């Protein structure tokens, strides 16, 4: 485990700080989000809105060479309107490598490590994983992308731990000088906590974990699920350093315990400096 973390994070960082041909900058922002099923219930679910503030640092290659190293580090905090037990603070580090084998193709490999402290300590977790993406430029203002993400998150209570594999694809259009639109689809297979409404003890299958969650006020069960998600997002540049982004995602999650649907959206403002 320690060797994996060294190879995935520390070694790329050593490379990163020795590499001068990069752009670096800070960003601060705030995002208003909503989620119609924060407890991942198979029967309706609890909806909530929350406010996220973030401060981040990003370093991207200049593009003078075919390859470059990237780095992003983000500190974010969230406050929920109704279920304050879900309030959290998270730190994420993500070094990466970008390779451009041809002018129209980009390959990026990005491991990440995240530490998250949640007011409901059961859900505090350390997560690590990696993302591999390929992006193709179809025309000057049109691009396609595909990606794979692996995430392994270990929470204080096992019911909230998960590992998952995601495959996704997206299409983006730089519609005007300041407006970008993206459409995406993602398939995910992995573990998820779920609220089943009534005690599910009698129906628990192999590999399922059950725990009483004080945050949700009911039993929570972890099981393996398949998810399909479709999304749309719109980014707008208001000034050189000021931008906004809004998005909506519909997710359908299927498991042995049932089906959950989630509508989630956000609107955020960001400032680069």
């Amino acid at each position, binding site marked *: 485990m320690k060797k994996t973390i060294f190879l995935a994070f520390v070694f790329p960082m050593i490379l990163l700080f020795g590499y001068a041909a990069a752009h670096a900058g800070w960003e601060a922002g705030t995002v208003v989000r909503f989620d119609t099923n924060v407890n991942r219930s198979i029967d309706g679910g609890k909806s909530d809105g929350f406010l996220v503030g973030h401060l981040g640092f990003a370093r991207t290659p200049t593009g003078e060479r075919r390859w470059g190293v990237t780095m992003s580090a983000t500190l974010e905090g969230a406050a929920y309107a109704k279920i304050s037990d879900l309030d959290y603070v998270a730190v994420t580090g993500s070094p990466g490598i970008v390779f451009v084998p041809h002018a129209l193709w980009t390959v990026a490999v990005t491991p990440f490590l*995240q530490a998250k402290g949640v007011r409901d300590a059961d859900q505090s977790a350390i997560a690590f994983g990696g993302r591999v993406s390929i992006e193709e430029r179809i025309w000057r203002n049109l691009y396609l992308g595909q990606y794979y993400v692996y995430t392994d998150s270990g929470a204080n209570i096992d019911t909230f731990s998960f590992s998952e594999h995601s495959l996704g694809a997206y299409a983006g259009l730089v519609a005007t000088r300041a407006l970008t639109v993206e459409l995406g689809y993602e398939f995910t297979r992995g573990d998820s906590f779920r609220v089943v409404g009534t005690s599910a003890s009698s129906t628990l299958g192999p590999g399922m974990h059950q725990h009483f969650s004080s945050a949700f006020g009911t039993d929570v069960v972890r099981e393996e699920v398949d998810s399909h998600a479709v999304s749309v997002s719109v980014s707008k540049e208001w000034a050189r350093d000021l931008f906004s982004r809004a998005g909506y995602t519909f997710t359908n999650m299927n498991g042995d315990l049932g089906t959950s649907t989630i509508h989630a959206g956000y609107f955020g403002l960001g400032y680069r400096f």
Partner: protein
Amino acid sequence: MQGTATGLIRPESGPVRFHLHSDRDEYTVLTGPAWYWSDLSIELPDGTPVRVQGSKSLGRDGNLYIIAQEMETPRTRRFFFFRDEGGFPLWKGSGAGRTGHGIGMGSPMGGHGGTGGGHGGGTRGHR
């Protein structure tokens, strides 16, 4: 801007550049890195007619520059793109620096599991 190209320079670092002679003025056109030109097999012998679209500016040295977004060689009817509509350099490949792709505004896609399921952040979503 339309004219003829001369004096192509393909430096090891920095943008490939050439002079564009129009009816009225002479410009230095700044494009992308040499490897990007190689990938797109761009040839620009002296005297080639070209049409360049981009941002014009007056340099501190008193010369006129064009930061090229798009270039066309009318004789071959080929188009070469250097920057997208938002000015993002296409040779940088990934959209990491594109308009509005905030560090802390990851798409909420793909989020089940854990407390942050679906809540975006730096590790979720495709940006």
